[in-house]
């Protein structure tokens, strides 16, 4: 098993190095300066957190997927923007405002994730249908509450600093992302929850007979994905000082691309946090590289689609001999 894991990790490190090298050749010094790295570092967390949510859903097996991530991220931002000013004034107490903003967003993410978890774990809906439905529902609530327009936060110092002021050269959203990812990695690796999740994903029937509470596990997994989405929602709000229901709609595809590229098995039971992080970073660098080379956004969409297919193909080639040895 270990050789397989290291292969994926080595591959992703290689991809990152390759993209950096390509950037040096095609763009030169302006790509590798501190400012560009900071701006990339501030953009990775949104995508990375959503991808981690998709990864959790996929690991849990049974066709697990979470299509509602970005919708929930936007909804939790919208909820916070609408609710928090009723409790705390942004001008009088900016720190309290920022903290309550984060709190309300997290609660919204928790509730949204719990809804997914209830539908999939307890009601027994297929993850695709449930998260398709909640994607529409979350988007719809966000549209309904805002009437379809963007809501601006105004300039709130601590929140804006969090989003846009690097601390010792490190963008704070990136630091938060790494902290959350590490925590998740530890949970998956060492906690009982993580072990049970991988077992559940590789063989749900065996997991059920081994006494794993399948329903509660699914519930917790999708709720966790919802919490990750709401952290992304907070970061989006802090970085852009506004929230809108249709922010980042392409993240639905790109998050799946990140996860597939990271070698997470769509059938469930396998996935690593560090691979997802590296894969999100690689895609962000590639995207910035396209920007520097002024390649059109449309071609970028095309490239993302083709890359997804390519990585599905490569996963298929890698796994076949491996599976034969194991069985």
């Amino acid at each position, binding site marked *: 098993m270990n050789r397989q894991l290291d292969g994926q990790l080595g591959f992703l490190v290689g991809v990152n190095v390759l993209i950096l090298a390509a950037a040096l050749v095609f763009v030169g010094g302006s790509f590798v300066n501190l400012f560009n790295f900071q701006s990339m570092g501030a953009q990775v967390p949104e995508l990375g957190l959503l991808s981690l949510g998709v990864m959790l859903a996929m690991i849990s097996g049974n*066709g697990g*997927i979470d299509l509602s991530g970005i919708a929930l991220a936007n909804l939790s931002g919208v909820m916070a923007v609408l609710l928090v000013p009723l409790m705390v004034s942004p001008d009088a107490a900016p720190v309290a405002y920022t903290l309550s903003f984060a709190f309300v967003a997290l609660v919204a993410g928790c509730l949204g994730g719990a809804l997914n978890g209830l*539908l999939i774990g307890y*009601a*027994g*809906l*297929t993850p*695709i*249908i*449930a998260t*398709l*439905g*909640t*994607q*529409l*529902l*979350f*988007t*719809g*609530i966000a*549209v*309904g509450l805002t*009437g*379809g327009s963007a809501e601006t936060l105004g300039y709130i110092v601590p929140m804006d600093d969090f989003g846009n002021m690097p601390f010792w050269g490190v963008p704070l959203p990136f630091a938060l992302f790494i902290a959350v990812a590490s925590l998740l990695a530890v949970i998956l690796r060492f906690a009982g929850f993580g072990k049970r999740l991988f077992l559940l994903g590789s063989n749900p029937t065996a997991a059920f007979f081994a006494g794993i509470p399948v329903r509660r596990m699914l519930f917790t997994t999708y709720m966790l994905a919802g919490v990750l989405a709401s952290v992304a929602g907070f970061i989006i709000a802090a970085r852009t000082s506004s929230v809108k229901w249709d922010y980042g709609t*392409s993240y*639905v*595809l790109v998050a*799946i*691309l990140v996860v*597939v590229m990271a070698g997470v098995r*769509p059938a469930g039971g396998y996935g690593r946090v560090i691979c997802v992080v590296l894969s999100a970073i690689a895609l962000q660098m590639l995207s910035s590289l396209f920007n520097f080379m002024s390649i*059109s956004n*449309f*071609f*970028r*969409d*095309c*490239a*993302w*689609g*083709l890359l*997804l*297919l390519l990585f*599905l*193909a490569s*996963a*298929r080639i890698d796994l076949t001999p491996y599976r034969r040895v194991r069985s």
Partner: protein
Amino acid sequence: MSLSVTANDEGRRAGFAKRIAGFFRRYPEAFAALLILILCIGVGLLNPAFWQLANLFDILRGSVVRGLFALGVLMVLAAGGLDVSFSAIAALVMYAVTKAVTLFAPDTGMVLIFIMSAVGGALLGAINGVLVNALKAPSLIVTIGTQYAYRGFLLTFIGTALFMNIPPAMDHFGQWSLMSRTAENGFTVQLPGFVLVLAVAALATWAMLRFTLIGRAVYAVGGRPDIAERLGYRVSSVQLFVFAWAGMLAGVAGIIHVSSNRLANPFDLAGIELSVIAAVILGGARITGGSGSVLGTLLGVVLITLVSNVLILIGIPSAWQTAILGLFILSAGVFFVLQKRWS
């Protein structure tokens, strides 16, 4: 009912629930029909302006493109897959065909235009089918990939500009009306001729699913792929066929979209995927495959069109449509799961 519930009562109630569940199991289309009925009666009571022929024409007109897409999704879903790339196929085909006809042969007849778009769509759909077979990955993920690839290809290599002057044949076809009626508010509403295309496509899909060997194979493969394979069905050819069929219908739908709007916009039709899938699910097709009917799908499409057309009549702002659509999908999902558990 008395407070103390005897075992007999409980048994009878369980029997009743079972019979209802059994009914919906046999006729899953009834769920969509019931919702349509409730919606019509409710809206009709709140706003009597609902009851007019012009409204019916509007709903039929609005159902054609979505209906063609939905028939394609039904085929793929019945065979155990999921397709979200049809909107990109339709956009690519409609724009490429309109542009090619305008530039090279502006006098091309409508029949030839339809044949070109059907063949083009079927080819793109066949690419989906081949990839789903070759990659052995969930078809949702594969078609998300091809969706972006097709649309990205369209916008990068074919064009991004609007096409206002569409070929005359398409313009005439879009204007062709079977009946016209003046609504109460003075607008004249027409029953467009392209409604017939949906009728033909629905009949063809129904007949194919019901009477041909490949149609039966679609359900067999969708229900239990392993057993179907042992029975001698070639799963890969069935998959290729359903995706090609869905692509073909999408291509035709794209041409109708251009003809009725009298302009070709390469950015159109994006984001319609979820509401189409919702229609098929509401029509009683199970996402796990092996079931679904043309009648149910058409009812689902009418229901979705109804929601987007009439909510405004009873004072629900259009901003809430998406949320209501989401609720509908979820309730359909929960309903069909519960019905399975009870019967």
